[in-house]
């Protein structure tokens, strides 16, 4: 009976730990997110729209990854990617609209 309950507890603990281990960020996930962020920021830069606040996020992400904190590293890289995406969106919108502000 005792053995049965021990097995049950172990199974429960394993079930609880499994998603956490699946969700925890690792070096591979960080590298993927970093590559995406860098590509988006390059795109923003080519459109003369890079923000001054984006690249520093990647520097901080690199430091976090170097210290083994991949969760933070992924979070920062994702934020940098979002910066890039917003900057590109501004570039695309402004390309169509900037002329409207020129006095005629």
């Amino acid at each position, binding site marked *: 009976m005792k053995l049965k309950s021990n097995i049950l507890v172990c199974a429960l603990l394993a079930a609880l730990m499994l998603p956490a281990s699946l969700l925890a960020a690792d070096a591979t996930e960080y590298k993927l997110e970093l590559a995406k962020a860098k590509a988006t920021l390059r795109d923003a*830069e080519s459109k*003369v*729209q*890079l*923000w*001054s*606040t*984006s*690249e520093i996020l990647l520097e901080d992400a690199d430091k976090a990854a170097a210290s083994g904190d991949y969760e933070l590293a992924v979070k920062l890289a994702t934020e940098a990617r979002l*910066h890039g995406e917003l900057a590109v969106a*501004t570039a695309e919108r*402004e390309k169509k609209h*900037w*002329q409207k*502000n*020129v*006095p*005629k």
Partner: protein
Amino acid sequence: MKRFLTACFLFMLMANVYASPETDRLALREFFAQRFPDLDLNEMINGLYAFDEGAREQWLEMEDFPPYEIAIEEGEEIFNTPFANGKGYADCFENGGIGIKQNYPRFDADSGEVITLEYAINQCRTDNGEEPLPWMTDELAAISAYMAYTSRGNKMSVVIPDDPRALQAYESGKEYYYTRRGQLEFACENCHMQSAGSLLRADRLSGMLGQATHWPVYRSKWGEIGTLHKRFRECNEQVRAKPYDAQSQVYRELEYFLSYMSNGLEMNGPASRR
């Protein structure tokens, strides 16, 4: 007939997309004439002091002992010091470099580039075997200040030659000026046209007209004299856009557009600002 109509249509389309620089300049003057009907537009070379009487009085008092005076003297001394090869800055410029700032930036047909005065100063150095000065140094700003001083009273006369590359450079500068950018999504136009004369916290915003006539500037905030490109960088930082290097192509083209818009206005550099 069909070809003729197509050509006419294309011409009208192009004319609509690319107004000539002169049409732009006149429309800009009209914009400010309507925006500030009681203001003499020639006063806009004085930036925010055209709008703010109290600040203007303080500024005029400061002009009794202008903080940029030392830079003019230093610039004159450097300007007149020969290079190692015996030549000098005067040999690189028309009229010996005196009273010519109103012609800059200019378009160089050989290189296809926009040449600002600071860019030309460094070209002069490298052509004579000297090391170029770093773009953000006091020394470069001082030479520019001296040359600006000798140009006081002349009228801004920037030329966009009949060369598609020059027009493209002008258009790129114009697009930059009117495009929102940075995390705060501000265009130069938002502050210096829409909000010109308004207060931004404790500072009154200058208008676009005349913004290129008075550089370099001694800014109390900087505690030193600096070039227009230093100010471009600061503006970019304020809206959280990544600034470009001073004398980058982007900024030279922006200066080209901005200066052309001030054509006909009196040169009054160097100047002092808060």
